[in-house]
């Protein structure tokens, strides 16, 4: 679905979001069509950015993941060495990847990360959908206000907001103290260092990433379709299931991926709120890198995670292209 050009001028908060999450070039680039050099430049800039700050680091990490650990600076053996003028000695070490598969820690961390991310995504969706729907159905004036409120938390540091949750959830925190004062409970409930706290942290932090793509989808829905469904005998629930839900699928998928993908690699929230018994893969990665100083294994963990996340990204791509093919 291409961006309607008038929205570029409307100055709504949803706009920048939409540009960001669709990665589509805005309409004004069409103006560049007659300007050959300008057009190239506009296209080249994001490519250059991605090559410099994604592809090059990725290749470096990929390279490190095949080397051996060594007590040196940097702490890994080079992948190849010139042994004479004409001969090159290549050490390709697949052991790091083998290690990931054989050690339970990694597999269980991956599985646990996926489980936490999946459950958080489902809760985000359940909370975000009614919110996005309500915003999309409210009057245009209040809509901007609501979107503003959704984005407002970003003005505070992410770390601060997670720390605030510690203050709320801990044994002598706000929630427990209130409940005890009200006489609902006698003993404080243990909420910190549990999966529950991790879910709360992730759902809270990533909710806007679910709401905004859902909103940008739902806002475009044609309300007469629901009238048509009602006219043909479908009650409100039927209409929702057969019309609104299928039509909002692209928004659901986009939002879910935007929550799921970063949640899998989440490091800060489980470190601060979760228990240390079961680690998420982000934590394993950081421990491997900083505590163990085993850069090659850390590299392998990172590469494996990336490959793991490629699957949902490709699913997303598939749906996106199908939607594009289906659009007018």
């Amino acid at each position: 679905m291409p961006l309607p050009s008038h929205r570029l001028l409307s100055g709504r908060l949803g706009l920048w979001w939409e540009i960001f999450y669709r990665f589509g070039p805005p309409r004004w680039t069409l103006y560049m069509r007659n300007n050959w050099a300008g057009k190239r430049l506009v296209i080249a800039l994001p490519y250059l950015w991605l090559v410099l700050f994604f592809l090059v680091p990725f290749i470096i990490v990929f390279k490190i993941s095949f080397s051996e650990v060594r007590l040196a600076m940097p702490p890994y053996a080079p992948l190849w060495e010139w042994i004479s003028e004409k001969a090159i000695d290549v050490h390709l070490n697949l052991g790091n990847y083998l290690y990931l598969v054989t050690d339970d820690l990694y597999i269980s961390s991956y599985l646990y990360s996926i489980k936490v991310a999946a459950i958080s995504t489902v809760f985000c969706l359940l909370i975000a959908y009614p919110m996005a729907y309500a915003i999309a159905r409210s009057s245009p004036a209040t809509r901007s206000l609501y979107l503003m409120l959704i984005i407002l938390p970003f003005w505070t540091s992410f770390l601060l907001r997670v720390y605030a949750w510690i203050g709320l959830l801990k044994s002598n925190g706000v929630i427990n103290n209130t409940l005890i004062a009200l006489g609902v409970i006698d003993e404080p409930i243990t909420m910190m260092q549990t999966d529950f706290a991790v879910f709360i942290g992730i759902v809270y932090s990533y909710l806007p990433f679910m709401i905004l793509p859902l909103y940008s989808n739902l806002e475009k829905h044609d309300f007469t379709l629901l009238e048509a469904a009602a006219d043909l005998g479908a009650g409100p629930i039927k209409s929702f299931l057969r019309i609104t839900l299928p039509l909002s699928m692209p928004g659901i998928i986009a939002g879910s991926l935007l929550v799921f993908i970063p949640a899998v690699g989440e490091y800060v929230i489980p470190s601060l709120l979760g228990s240390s018994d079961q680690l998420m893969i982000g934590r394993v990665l950081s421990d491997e890198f900083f505590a163990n100083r085993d850069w090659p294994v850390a590299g392998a963990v990172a590469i494996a995670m990336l490959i793991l996340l490629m699957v949902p990204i490709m699913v997303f791509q598939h749906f996106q292209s199908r939607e594009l093919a289906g659009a007018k």
Partner: protein
Amino acid sequence: MAERRNDNKREPWRDPGAQAYVQIENVTKRFGDFVAVNNVSLKIYQHEIFCLLGGSGCGKTTLLRMLAGFEPPTSGRILIDGKDMADTPPYERPTNMMFQSYALFPHMTVAKNVSFGLEQEKLPKAEVAQRVDEILDIVKMREYAQRKPHQLSGGQRQRVALARALAKRPKLLLLDEPLGALDKKLREQTQFELINIQERLGVTFVVVTHDQEEAMTLASRIGVMNRGEIVQVGTPSEIYEFPGSRFVADFIGSVNMFEGRLIEDLPDRVRIHSPELGGVVYVDHGISSAPGAAVWAAIRPEKINISRAAPASTAENCVRGIVKEIAYMGDLSIYLVKIEAGKMVRVTLPNIERLADDERILWDESVYLSWHSSSPVVLPQ
């Protein structure tokens, strides 16, 4: 104007004992301070094609949406088949609607769109499939059953929308500007198809349109609306030949209007003195207004003769003027003639013969305009 075949047989509105299928009783709809529909009462009978005709913002669509149940009336009652619809939500009404935008479900195929309503009735699958085929046959869209709406042209979408609205065999079909999005040729063709389908299925149609030609072609009766009120209800020819007010006369077709004063009012003859015309208008049918009252004489452009020589018959109304503008439309020509009193009069002439240029009345020629005394309509307001 397509006269409907069985017009004389089915004019249930002339029968005081006939049971109306739709009864709209003193319905008013307000949006805040704005009165969209103002105290409208209407009776619509079975097998009718009733057209609600009016300009934009006259309340015709609001009235239709109240019939469908999308808007509750602020006051008044709507009865369909004798049943008060006040507490009946749209999905339980015996009506179906064809939307102006068609509102086809973009993620469903043509067949799925059409079967949507039938599936809500929980009919067996085989029967649904059979009825979908049947209705797609009627609108000639069967070979497109597996297409999605965005793969169809405007005319094809219009057919699918009609098929979807008809699939549940509603007793009452509501059509909101059904042909608005089609080009002129396709629109004319579809108008007759709509009438055929309506006669074949025996559905009652309520059509909303701003296009008077469309209303004339489709309707058994037309309800002309203005500012939320029904101004006149009648058959197309009644509305055209005997408009009840200046608004209707002006809205339907074009008309020349002469303001004047009633100087003689007999049962079979009326004389109106009109300074605008620069003389007296003779009308051979009576009206009921007091002598001296301000009235308007309305004369349709095609009922005025234009000639170089003075008309022979003295029974005719006659004025002189000069041709100022000529518009050649192919099938007819429109003349704008400035009469001696200064007013511009519009005259249309069918181009029956191919006239050579010197036989044709041309610009700046002095002409006589005349009309039979049965032609003017006297409008008191």
